């Protein structure tokens, strides 16, 4: 076996390195690597590459055939004991540093990164990657985004972590013990799991999932809620304040079982990020011990940190946004608002029910908190109190707010941010219900959302209000829209707002402001049997 393209064995034997060469100010490295195979062309190219590096006086990288050993001897190197199946590495350099560079250059020349291998053609026969792991072996990615059904998400997410990248897990219905295992693995590797059930992130200037187009800036968000994050992104943008990153952590991260692992990891990452000057953590109130851990981390951060733990009796998202803006030194603006345009008189407050039809759970929550404080019980499929739960048919006679993005309503159908049909149906129902005085809707723009929500919604609003104006049934229907979007979003926020206002809606950029306005339009009823009275004594 004397071809120089042969090999065998295992391991490397270093013969000598860093050896000063007498009579000259040089150092030498001679090494025999058995178990290393490279074809002769690769070896010639490697030799040439190493020999061309600064500070390298001579290099021979070749199989140990008699011919090559003769050449080696002729170059004056110390002779190793090598056979034709061994790879001989001989490098002569001006000093140790140059020698190290030479050997690093050799490793680079000999390694064959699969990232440069094309998938198609003769190098891989056009077989697309079938797992996240396979895709990551072919390409140097910065992130993986997993949206397979929840019971299959674990293996793909673990592939990402083992492949050395952080992962956004959009999938929901991932069992909690799998979430914990993923987050523990991520922590071990210094990576981040955004999710499960994370629909929103902005990383490296890129919107992932449902995210708004925002400018780069000093605020870093850590969000356990997608639409909560989106509302903040949009309000910050309205004030001209940009975002360094928005890291989603998934809806369950701050539970006792998960312990806020991703939240803490994300906070630390933003703390270490030079571009982030203010960190805002957004979530519903977490389990106590988790809240304590988050507060402790916040206190230890070098970067100023705002904890926005939403809920009853706590600041709303608009207040949080204002605080954040002020902290960066920017001016808190008048939040954009688009009253109904044209010759339509503004609706007057009158008695009747307030019905909220939401696509974002956090936005629905925020509106309910604001409404319940003034109006008493608000029925819902995500009720603030268990006894305020809506029946399965989602019908009631009093105030109600429905989260159409909730699991039961999205089983087997697209999310309401993509497909408006369910909400439009309900809008028509509310229009036909004489007891309904105000309909409150959120419209969430940005990447991933419906490309032109106003195209469907404006005609529906116009038709609903028109029907009421004609008296079937009687009583004006006021429509209030909380429009969550930025002027850079693909849907073009201002055009959406104008179309909705032209249809008769009163549009607000601030969800809290929209909710307050809607509440103001509904006068609490007198004792008429209106369910709003039922627990008048228990309003907060």
């Amino acid at each position, binding site marked *: 076996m004397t071809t120089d393209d042969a090999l065998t064995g295992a391991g490397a034997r270093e013969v000598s390195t860093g050896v000063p060469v007498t009579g000259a100010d040089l150092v030498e490295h001679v090494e025999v690597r058995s178990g290393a195979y490279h074809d002769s062309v690769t070896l010639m190219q490697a030799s040439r590459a190493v020999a061309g590096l600064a500070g390298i006086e001579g290099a021979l990288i070749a199989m140990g055939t008699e011919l090559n050993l003769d050449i080696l001897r002729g170059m004056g190197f110390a002779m190793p004991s090598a056979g034709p199946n061994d790879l001989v590495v001989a490098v002569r350099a001006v000093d140790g540093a140059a020698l190290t560079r030479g050997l690093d250059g050799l490793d680079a020349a000999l390694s064959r990164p699969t990232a440069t291998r094309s998938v198609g053609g003769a190098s891989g026969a056009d077989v697309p990657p079938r*797992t996240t792991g396979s895709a990551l072996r072919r390409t140097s990615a910065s*992130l993986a985004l997993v949206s397979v059904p929840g019971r299959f998400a674990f293996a793909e997410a673990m592939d990402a972590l083992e492949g050395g990248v952080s992962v956004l897990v959009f999938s929901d219905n991932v069992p909690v013990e799998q979430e914990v295992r993923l987050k523990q693995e991520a922590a071990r590797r210094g990576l981040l799991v955004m999710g499960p059930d994370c629909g929103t992130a902005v990383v490296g200037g890129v919107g992932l999932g449902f995210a708004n187009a925002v400018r780069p800036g000093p605020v870093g968000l850590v969000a356990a809620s997608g639409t909560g994050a989106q509302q903040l992104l949009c309000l910050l943008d309205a004030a001209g304040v940009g975002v360094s990153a928005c890291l989603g952590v998934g809806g369950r991260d701050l539970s006792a079982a998960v312990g806020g692992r991703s939240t803490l990891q994300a906070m630390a990452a933003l703390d270490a990020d030079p571009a982030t000057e203010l960190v805002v953590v957004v979530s519903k109130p977490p389990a106590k011990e988790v809240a304590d851990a988050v507060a402790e981390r916040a206190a230890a951060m070098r970067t100023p940190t705002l904890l926005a733990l939403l809920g009853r009796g706590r600041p709303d998202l608009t207040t949080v946004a204002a605080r954040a803006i002020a902290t960066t030194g920017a001016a808190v603006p008048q939040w954009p608002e688009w009253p109904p345009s044209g010759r339509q008189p503004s609706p007057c407050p009158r008695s009747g029910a307030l019905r909220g039809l939401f696509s974002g759970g956090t936005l629905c929550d925020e509106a309910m908190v604001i409404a319940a404080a003034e109006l008493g019980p608000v029925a819902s499929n995500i009720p603030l109190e268990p006894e305020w739960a809506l029946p399965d048919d989602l019908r009631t006679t009093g105030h109600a707010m429905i989260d159409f993005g909730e699991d039961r309503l999205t089983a087997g159908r697209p999310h309401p941010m993509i497909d408006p049909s369910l909400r439009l149906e309900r809008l028509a129902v509310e229009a036909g219900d004489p007891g309904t005085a105000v309909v409150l809707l959120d419209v969430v723009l940005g990447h991933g959302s419906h490309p032109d929500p106003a195209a469907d919604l404006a005609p529906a609003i116009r038709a609903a209000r028109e029907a009421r104006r004609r008296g079937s049934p009687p009583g004006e229907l006021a429509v209030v829209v909380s429009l969550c979007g930025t002027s850079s979003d693909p849907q073009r926020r201002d055009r959406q707002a104008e179309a909705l206002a032209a249809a008769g809606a009163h549009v607000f950029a601030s969800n809290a402001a929209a909710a307050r306005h809607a509440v103001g339009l509904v006068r609490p009823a007198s004792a008429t049997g209106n369910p709003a009275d039922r627990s008048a004594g228990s309003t907060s």
Partner: protein
Amino acid sequence: MTAGAPSLGLLTADPHVVTVGAGLFAEALAAQAVPVTPVEWRPPPPGTEEDLVRVVADPRRPEANRTAMERMLAAGAELVDVRPASEALGLEAGTFFHAGPPVTWERASGPLRGALMGAAVFEGLAESPAAAETLLAAGDGIVLDSCHHHRAVGPMAGVISASMWVFELRDPGSDARAYCSLNEGLGKVLRYGAYGQDVIDRLRWMSAVLGPLLRSAVLAHGPIDVKAIVAQMLQMGDEGHNRNRAGTLMLLREVLPSLIDCDAAAKDVAEVVRFVAGNDHFFLNLAMPACKLATDAARDVPGSTVVVAMARNGTDFGIQVSGTGDRWFTGPALVPEGLYLGDYGPEDANPDIGDSAITETAGIGGFAMAAAPAIVRFVGGEVPDALAATGSMYEITLAEHPVFQVPILDFRGTPTGIDVTRVVRTGILPSINTGMAGRVPGTGQVGAGLVTPPEQVFPAALAALAEASPPVGPG
């Protein structure tokens, strides 16, 4: 818990996203001019999700697989001796080793029964094939066992009996051994279930002349590096399972001087040379034990999901996995799909048989089909099929072989180390490049084609791995 550099890398790296799942995410990213690599994902078979999670979550798995693969890839293979099986394997009269997972006479298919009958006559345990059949069916004093249980492998029926001579291979790094019978040639031979007098006579000559002469040559020459021959033959159009021509010639080149030089009658030397040179598959019986040395080295690493054996007995197809010890996971052997010789057709073919799938298990054979375009037509395909066959195997394996490389793929290493979890996740089954035996004993080869293990063996192995894994927790 501190954020290491990678989390920071997340924030500052140039975005390039791998997406798996709903296409709209890849579209939304493309709309932002972000490079996207979408995964062509399919769900695994129903009922495997929980086992998959448990095995993927096993904290031992990455390191265990790394260890198993290091050992598999580093194992060497030298031919060091040729000896009677009675010495080398301790085979006693009445005991027969066979290919594939353990099987009984009752369940054995035609070619295996025929081979056992022929071997019984060869050993002098029965006067005739009919008497042998009666003896084997009765079972008194007869022991059947898998070659694999004795560090051996055998092609097709793979029957090894006491008087047969076997190659002895050694891994110089660990001193481990593997054995294989000597290849009889093509046509009506024992391994295809033939048991006629010509078969017996040939076996006798192989034990009396071929074995001893090869032994003298090997001992005189010194150990022959079989792994190095495999590396070279892959670059000469062989893949090590269905095509071994270059390997056979390189072996012959090695032993010829010592053969000529040893103190044997020139006539015998000539017959040996003629025999080896005339059998393009002779080297198969060296490639196989070389692969067995590699896969055996990867055995018994707790938590490892690497397949260490794929073998068929003509009735069942069995796999063994590093993390589950000696357990076999079996299912019905399938009939290969490919081309038939002469007038033969699918009804003539026996289900898949032989230990030769050890070649695919070690990263050659069907996995190296891209190196052997000449064979692809023989199995009914075209050249792009050969490239695609190797290409898809990368999806289910853990490593690219540092030594076995495919020139047309830019010298990329062959896909090596089948991972049970990846097979289940992708639904891609290992592709085996094989000859087809005739169902009727003694027919010989009826064709060649591609075959896979029966699907169910991988979920079965996965379930066993899951049982042996810790419950899913923070770890």
